């Protein structure tokens, strides 16, 4: 899958590139509006990560160009601007998602995956991980064909973990995914334990393998055995 990262902050762009590269993504970087316009003219991407404040112009320009060329590339805005007005403007101009900086790369990854799923399969899709099947539309999880009762949070957590398979996730990254903006306001992220414990227990009861490994006590990793 091809991703275009339009970001003038080269350090952020390379971090994203590094993180995504190991997950079957091919990332290209464009640090200016001019370069970005050239690239979207020539190629099409599965997903474009768009920073709004570029040195040579406003990132919204990209959305207008995509619209005028009838391109259907998915766009996720990554911006430090977090006003409701900017978000609404971005989304009405055709962006698919909006992520406020600073964000967790793991969060960005699952957002990209969700976007790509919506675009490619018209939203009708089932994620399969060995014996686990997740239907993102009907919001149901099946293990070896048997339906399992998952809460919305547990389902969210499972999708997040599988989406970031083979990556080490910090508790704060998981907490942020589960509680959104509120996570970094919390003094402690112990609630993550509870959800993980419950989810693991349910998966184990249904006979799924134990893919979720604890990393040095504070991190987690969903490993493909």
């Amino acid at each position, binding site marked *: 899958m091809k991703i275009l990262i339009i970001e003038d902050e080269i*350090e952020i762009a390379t971090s994203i590139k590094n993180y995504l590269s190991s997950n079957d993504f091919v990332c290209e970087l464009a640090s200016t509006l001019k370069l970005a316009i050239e690239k979207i003219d020539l190629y099409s991407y599965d997903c474009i990560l768009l920073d709004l404040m570029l040195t040579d112009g406003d990132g919204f320009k990209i959305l207008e160009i995509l619209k005028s060329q009838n391109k259907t590339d998915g766009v996720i805005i990554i911006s430090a601007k977090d006003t409701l007005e900017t978000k609404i403007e971005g989304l009405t101009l055709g962006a698919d998602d909006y992520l406020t900086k600073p964000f967790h*790369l793991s969060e960005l990854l699952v957002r990209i995956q969700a976007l790509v799923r919506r675009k490619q399969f018209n939203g009708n899709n089932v994620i399969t991980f060995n014996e686990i099947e997740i239907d993102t539309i009907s919001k149901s999880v099946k293990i070896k064909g048997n339906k399992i009762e998952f809460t919305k949070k547990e389902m969210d957590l499972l999708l997040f973990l599988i989406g970031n398979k083979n990556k080490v996730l910090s508790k704060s990254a998981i907490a942020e995914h589960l509680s959104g903006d509120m996570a*970094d306001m919390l*003094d402690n992220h112990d609630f993550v334990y509870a959800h993980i414990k419950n989810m693991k227990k349910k998966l184990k009861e249904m006979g799924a393998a134990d893919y979720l490994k604890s990393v040095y006590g504070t991190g987690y990793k969903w490993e493909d055995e």
Partner: protein
Amino acid sequence: MNKKLLQKTLRYYIIFSLVVMLLGVPLFFFINQWLYLHEADEALQVKKEEFVKFFVPQIKENEIAIFNKLNSDLHIEKNNEGIVKDTIFERNFYNHMDKENEPFRILRSPVTINNKSYIFSVRANLVDDYELALITLAVFTVIILILLIGLFIITRRLSITLWKPFYETLKQIEQFEIDKTSNPKLIANDIEEFNRLNNTINNLIQKNSSIYQSQKEFIENAAHELQTPIAIFKGKLENILQRKDLNSEQFKLIDDLNNTTTRLVKLNKNLLVLSKIDSNSYYEIEKINLHEIINNQLTFFSEQSLSKKISITTEIEENVVVSSNHFLAEMLISNLFLNTINHNVLDGQITIKLTNDKLLFSNTGSLLPLQTEKMFERFSKSNPSSQGNGLGLSIIKKIVDTNHWTINYNFTNRMHTFEIVF
């Protein structure tokens, strides 16, 4: 006690008038009396000289009795006392017409008629001292009263017309708030001093507003600019975390850095929120159903409170509608929740009570009451080692202020309670 400008001016006028009256009345009285006596004496002397010049050469001894009979104020008698010099003195005589004693000025002078020594006395009726003093006092009082009434009217008129620009300016400054965008409009007038005052105030306000503005912008920009380096930092940390060669110790270090970054993000977000409230970014007011917001957040925070085994009891009236910006209302409730959870103890309690006119968040926590005087100031922390950044209560206070509500804190039965009155 503070007095109005007019009252103060009038008070000085009255004091001054009284002093003038107290000193003026006796002074006037004595000068008047002295002048009057002087004149009376002179008149008596003239009469005597007239008598000596015209009557003495003609008068005969047998005519003296008739003379005395015909002249009530002139009198000739034998000089039995043997006076040689003129004497002037005062004496009261009974007036049969007025039926009262009246003061007279009397001149007694030795004269020689036909080589015989006689005393010629001439008298003049004096105005009563007492009456004179009374009349003087009365005249003075009337004059001073007229003066005072005049001054009062003039001062009033002056204070209304002359001081009008001053009172206008005063009103404008009273309404001025530095965190509001509108500056007072001080009207120019034709009085130099007031124009100077207005110009000085204008300069002061402009200077302060621009300092305030730039400080506000600085905080907002600083918080905003920090987001990018934090994003870079966060991204790098997440990438390092993926390295296969990390040992437990290194992993722990990175995780600590991760948590610190989270604190940094939180601090930054809170600063942004505060400066945005300051710059009036959340100006859209709507009717908010508070119990909905509380219930929406209750699920999330109940989950958060599980790790401390905190029990939450609620007593929430439905359909409590307040006017607020929606984001601010959510921010207020979530900060109150965070506050009650973050400062709580293991197996603690939280009580939330919502009635039509107030909202109460109570929690167990430290066994001592919080110090109230600095509690709402930015970066003031009750417990320096806590993970909090001391901005939570500032945000709560700011939102409460923005909505023109009030917030009170009290500590009873080991419960810290924040009460917000709408």
